[in-house]
């Protein structure tokens, strides 16, 4: 035990702290729920035919969205990362815009779009409508995962294929099979996101398992059953992750740059035409249409409405950006610590254990996480944490550290073990190896973790609403509280303001990180 603790002590310290601050509160409430006499039976009794049907509907929707998003994302990833399509960088950036919008607002925009263009909302308020909205929302994520995997393919495999079997056969029989683990990873991530998504089905009036949990919370104030039912969602995610770990443990995942090799581009006029048509079609459908609705509604009220939206929301921007930056940093540190191991080695039992714990927090509905934090922290001895912004940071980290752990874990898998071995043979101490070899090589993945954590923290509402200190003003909270009775033009204008702030802050952070990355040895190798 001694040597195990002494190895990488900083990592152990970070994980211990995370365990105490974020994991223990959740385990505490789950333990309380399942070991209080009668509670387990009550939760079981809440599962009737109707509930099972809702769970089935949720699973079907999640499967459909994950399949469609993975397919579309792979096609987009191919055209934007591996073909010679003009304007690839700009198109890639534009396609990411849905990630900056909250699912709730996107669903409202789609509903308005359907009514304004067809005079009815019948289609969009059906399960097919939910699939449409969520597919447009999560396809960018699948695109990034598939695209970075495509870009990381060792070119020598494909070059051999091109010589012997032609480009089409190479694509179908070499390239796509090579990125199969990444495709499965994209499927799993989108599936989990969709399964725990509540606001889109709620806005579109489609009953799913998460809306049932919400009803338990908000119509019956029955926290016990709601938390019990949430545990079922977590269980399903565990099963999926176990399946993934068993069969596809080497799956690459999203990273900022290309690590594996300098993959060549597929070229050809026909390919460019098809690619341009598909990418522009997707851009039009997922970005231009909803964005046009929001812009049209916002400017319908004139510039005064936009000015009012700015005046209402800008005061909340500095504190939100500061907290989101803090959240991004803690998410990065926790995720990196959870995934850290000697480069080139398989995940240790510690890595696997934390992967499960982080998934538990990631898959848990945001309200349940909020309630768990309140139950644990709301006591006089911990008032210094509960009464201030620190509790929001704990919430952000608990919700999104899983993603950072996945990013870092994947990057670690791609680091050549030879660097570490050579440094060991040269008797370079561990800290110097970490600071001067591993960290610079991991910078792209760490930067991606920070950016993703920053964006998600900036828009987080579910847990924040449960724990934000009274008197604090944060962007998502302010937007949603103000829009409750605001006229449509003001609501749309406020949405555009929040989106612009997120986009501007992310771009700035990206530019700063890019400068940092240029100085890393990774940049020199490109």
């Amino acid at each position: 035990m001694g040597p195990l603790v002494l190895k990488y002590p900083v990592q152990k310290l970070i994980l211990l702290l995370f365990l105490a601050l974020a994991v223990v509160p959740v385990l505490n409430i789950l333990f309380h729920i399942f070991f209080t006499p009668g509670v387990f039976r009550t939760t079981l009794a809440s599962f009737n035919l109707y509930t099972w049907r809702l769970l089935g509907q949720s699973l079907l929707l999640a499967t459909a969205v994950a399949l469609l998003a993975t397919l579309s994302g792979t096609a987009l990833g191919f055209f934007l990362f591996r073909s010679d399509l003009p304007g690839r960088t700009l198109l890639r950036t534009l396609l990411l815009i849905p990630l900056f919008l909250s699912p709730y607002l996107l669903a409202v925009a789609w509903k308005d779009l359907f009514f304004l263009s067809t005079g009815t909302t019948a289609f969009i308020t059906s399960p097919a409508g939910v699939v449409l909205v969520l597919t447009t929302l999560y396809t960018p994520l699948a695109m990034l995962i598939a695209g970075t995997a495509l870009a990381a393919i060792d070119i020598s495999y494909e070059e051999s294929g091109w010589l012997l079997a032609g480009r089409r056969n190479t694509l179908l029989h070499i390239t796509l099979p090579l990125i199969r683990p990444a495709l499965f990873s994209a499927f799993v991530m989108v599936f989990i996101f969709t399964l725990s998504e509540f606001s889109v089905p709620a806005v579109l009036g489609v009953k799913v398992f998460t809306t049932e949990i919400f009803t338990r919370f908000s119509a019956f104030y029955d926290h016990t059953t709601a938390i019990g039912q949430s545990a079922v969602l977590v269980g399903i995610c565990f099963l999926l992750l176990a399946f993934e770990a068993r069969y596809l443990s080497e799956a690459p995942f999203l990273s900022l740059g290309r690590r594996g090799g300098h993959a060549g581009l597929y070229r050809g006029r026909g390919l460019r035409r098809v690619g341009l048509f598909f990418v522009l079609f997707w851009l039009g459908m997922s970005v231009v249409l909803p964005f046009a609705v929001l812009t049209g509604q916002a400017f319908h009220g004139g510039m005064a409405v936009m000015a009012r939206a700015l005046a209402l929301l800008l005061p909340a921007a500095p504190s939100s950006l500061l907290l989101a930056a803090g959240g991004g940093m803690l998410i990065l540190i926790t995720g990196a610590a959870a995934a850290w191991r000697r480069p080139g080695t398989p995940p240790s039992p510690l890595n696997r254990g934390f992967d499960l714990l982080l998934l538990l927090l990631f898959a848990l509905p945001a309200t349940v996480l909020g309630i768990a934090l309140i139950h644990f922290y709301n006591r006089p001895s911990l008032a210094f944490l509960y009464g201030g912004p620190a509790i929001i940071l704990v919430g952000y980290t608990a919700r999104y550290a899983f993603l950072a752990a996945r990013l870092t874990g994947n990057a670690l898998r791609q680091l050549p073990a030879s660097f570490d071995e050579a440094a060991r043979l040269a008797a370079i101490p561990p800290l110097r190896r970490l600071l001067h070899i591993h960290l610079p090589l991991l910078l792209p993945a760490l930067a991606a973790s920070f950016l993703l954590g920053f964006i998600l923290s900036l828009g987080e509402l579910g847990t924040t609403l449960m724990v934000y200190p009274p008197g604090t003003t944060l962007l998502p909270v302010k937007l949603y509280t103000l829009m409750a009775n605001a006229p449509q033009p003001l609501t749309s204008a406020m949405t555009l303001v929040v989106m612009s702030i997120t986009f501007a802050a992310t771009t700035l952070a990206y530019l700063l990180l890019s400068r940092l990355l240029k100085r890393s040895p990774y940049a020199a190798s490109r």
Partner: protein
Amino acid sequence: MRKWFLFFVMVSLLATGCSRNSNEVVVYTSVDQVFSEPVLKEFEKETGIKVNAVFDTEETKSTGVLNRLIAEKNHPQCDVFWSGDPVRTLVLKRKGITQPYRSPEAQDIPAVYKDPDGHWTGFSARARVLLYNKELLEDEAVPNSIFDLTKPQYRGKVALANPLFGTTTFHIAALFSVLGDERAKALLDSLKANGLVLATSNGDVRKRVVQGEMACGITDTDDAFEAMKEAPHVGIVFLDQQGIGTLIIPNTVNLIKECPHPDNGKKLIDYLLRRKTEAALAASCAQMPLHKGVKVPEGIPSLDHIVPMKINYDSTAAKLEEIQDYLKAWVRSF
């Protein structure tokens, strides 16, 4: 330098958590921020007591703060809960989260709008009204009673918010109280058979009527008046003025049991229950004062001219609990 910056950020974050001012009051409110915040700011200006507020959101059906209050029960952080309706207040009372406080400012508020045990007091009320689109309904075709909505001429034209949440829940419970279970169930079944559309919220009802997707819908007066400001082609009707009357939904305010600043909490409650606050809320969101003789802007309805539904708020809350399973099944059947 960087280390110092990080240290400074961490210390400020923690310090903000520790520096709780004693001359403050913490209020959680489910009333829309656009309407509640100016009142709280005014209180702050007048008394010098800092107000730390937690507001609720439409996305959580305005139940986020209530769930938070329930979760914080063992160590309350909130002094005053200002609710937009009596439903949430009564849930808190039932769960033992409130304490009695009889404000001197509420003496002339009618007894029906106050808890006999002093746990809540009502003020500035909204009403449940029918919002209709003038382009889709001629004047003579506008319904006057909730029972009219079951007639074939309104088939598929009426929207109602999901009755498992918010004021619609209380409206249905009130109908059960007034009509009795059998008649109320028959009414709901007839509405469903006549193609009633369940909207996600009162705001959604408003939007559908304004956009012309639905000819009419039942909603609250604040939503209805906002709709009339936004779109001149919509109008409102107070239903059943010759029959069972219109449901009146007062704002309610409670003092939280074992709250950290009880004295300031009482001061805030007194402030909210003043005539001046009712006049301000009448001007900002068309809420009807419960004090007699409060001056309201032109066009704002007055309780003096509306026939209210005769209910007991406590027993209606009990009825609500009783019919929850039926309501859930009714919603599932859509």
